[in-house]
């Protein structure tokens, strides 16, 4: 499945130089601060594949999702869908929105508590002019497809459902517009493990049946590794590594990726983690460190890491990372080690 997807299909979504900074504070004489939520993020996704985005809090993964959805505007950058740039006009945006849909983390906040399940699913298609009967027929079909019996669930309100069932409804709602790309922003993180497994199976089935492309955002590396063809690692608003899932997990090129992998709890009580891979908390994206943003926590950091922003280098086929100290071709590779 993966080989066919990575070699033959074309790019469906392309993001270039996407940047978003937020201003915070700044009223009543307090100095204005800038949150560099997303800085110069570029990537592209082949049709029918899954791109996983991982990173810790403040790394900009959720902002990235909202920027792609057009829920917030980008400061600069381009978004291409099927090789066509998406403009900012309302009509273009509305058409584009049918193509890209999103499932949120909080299954209960993402459903209107005063609307029945059926009405929530029908809302999107009706906005786009589908008539009520047609929308209802499709909603029932989708409910059935996500494993909820329409006869029992269509007329329910969200609070009558369990978290797993609500998340299935959210998936149905996202699919109701027949999108090409679906973004999952921590969509399974809040579910119990046994339910999470059911939902992941469902996602994989739906993707194959409907030829969907996924962007799967999560802090759980195991889940991302499981579901993704490609993985992008973000740190403080920047892409630090991006590559085919197996290559990235087998040979992580960036020290942060390595630390993240080593931080995953071992499932074997006899092979416990012996020491923490990195110390401290991820810093705040307000005034992030200069140059390589990971340098304050990086054991390999050298003066050049504090001074010069590392560019992405090729770490393998379709595999890039941004680190002076991992790139043998970088002029700063061996800096400080001769002595």
């Amino acid at each position, binding site marked *: *499945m*993966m080989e066919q997807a990575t070699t033959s299909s074309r790019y469906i979504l392309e993001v270039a130089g996407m940047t978003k900074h937020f201003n915070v504070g700044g009223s009543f004489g307090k100095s204005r601060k800038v949150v560099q939520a997303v800085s110069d993020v570029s990537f592209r996704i082949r049709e029918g594949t899954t791109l996983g985005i991982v990173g*810790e*809090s403040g790394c900009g993964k959720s902002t990235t999702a909202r920027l792609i959805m057009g829920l917030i505007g980008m400061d600069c950058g381009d978004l291409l869908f099927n090789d066509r740039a998406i403009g900012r006009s309302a009509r273009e945006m509305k058409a584009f929105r049918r193509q890209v849909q999103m499932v949120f983390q909080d299954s209960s906040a993402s459903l209107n508590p005063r609307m029945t399940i059926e009405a929530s699913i029908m809302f999107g298609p009706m906005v786009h002019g589908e008539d009520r009967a047609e929308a209802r027929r499709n909603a029932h079909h989708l409910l059935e497809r996500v494993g909820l019996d329409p006869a029992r669930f269509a007329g329910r309100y969200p609070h009558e459902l*369990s*978290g*797993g*069932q609500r998340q299935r409804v959210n998936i149905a709602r996202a699919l109701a517009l027949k999108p090409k790309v679906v973004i999952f922003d921590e969509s399974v993180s809040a579910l*119990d*493990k*046994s*339910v*999470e*497994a*059911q939902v*992941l*199976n469902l996602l*994989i089935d739906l993707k194959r049946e409907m030829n969907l492309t996924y962007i799967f955002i999560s*802090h*759980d*590396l*195991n*889940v991302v*590794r*499981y*579901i993704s063809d490609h993985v992008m690692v973000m740190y403080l608003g920047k892409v630090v590594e991006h590559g085919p*899932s*197996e290559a990235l*997990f087998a040979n992580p090129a960036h020290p942060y990726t390595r*630390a*993240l992998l*080593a*931080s*995953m*709890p*071992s*499932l*074997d*009580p*006899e092979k*416990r*983690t012996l*020491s*923490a*891979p*990195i*110390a*401290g*908390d*991820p810093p705040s994206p307000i005034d992030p460190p200069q140059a390589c943003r990971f340098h304050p926590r990086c054991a390999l950091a050298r003066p050049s890491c504090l001074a010069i922003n590392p560019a992405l280098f090729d770490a393998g086929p379709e595999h890039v990372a941004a680190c002076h100290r991992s790139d043998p071709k970088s002029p700063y590779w061996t800096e400080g080690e001769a002595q």
Partner: protein
Amino acid sequence: MSAFTAREPLLSVRDLTVGFKTDRGPITALDRISFDLGRGEVLGLIGESGSGKSVTMRALLRILPQKRTTISGSILMEGRDVLALKRRELASYRGNDVAMIFQEPSLAFDPVFTVGRQIAETVVRHKQCSWDAAYARALEMLELVRIPSAKSRLDNYPHEMSGGMRQRAMIALALACSPKLLLADEPTTALDATVQIQVILLLRELQKELGMATIFVTHDVGVAAEISDRVAVMYAGRIVEMGSAADVLKSPAHPYARGLLSSTIHGAMAGERVEAIPGMPPDLANMPSGCAFSPRCAMAMPECRNVIPAPASVGAGRSAACIRVGSVAA
């Protein structure tokens, strides 16, 4: 109390049952759970939401709302009956004998006082020492939990600390009176991966250093594997399997424990289907008859619907509550 000897377990829980009155009628949140905990031992309580892990912790600390709760069974801490403690004794029991850490440090810290003051206050209250001595103890505790430049951090308010540091400060607060038993309720769940592992390792080290027994509640099998000596798997208010961490996590006997482990996504399974447990956990107000897991269990027999299986030994120091467990374990 004098009859207590060091060879007995620190904590002995027998047939602990907790019921709540709810709008939809009475529910049994905890159904006859029994376990022992030795000094310096770490028990991991694994379960999904509604399995009763947090209720167990709150019952042990006796912080369940009294009006709506019925508790039966016994909790013996060093031979002392915790359920019979009077108000005054309870205040000393919480803190001196048992302390708890939470998922959210905001539950433990008051935002209007400095972290140092709050730790010192706890020490003063329980140890009746001077404020100077208490502040010295607070500093010692912050150093113990490896907060960098601890001295200046004493004067920080909780919101001035990062998430991981607040979690460390909460551990310092809980350990300030050197409790014999630490109750940890998902203390690492809300943390980022790189911070979570730091806190787990810290707790592991401190627990060894101080020889303190710990009950660690988590829904994450990986976290339980990192810290537990023994684990107990809970389902719908009952302990379905208990044994050494290595035994239970590597070769689970109970069908639910097996299902939970097989549905936990781990490294080398990309592309494979996850073996998910069908259905969802039962509604406590509407429990199935017999074994609570039987409606979701692939191996259920008609008999499973009739009897609630009692925990039975399935090897050294290991028990499982399943009537098919003999055939399962074989």
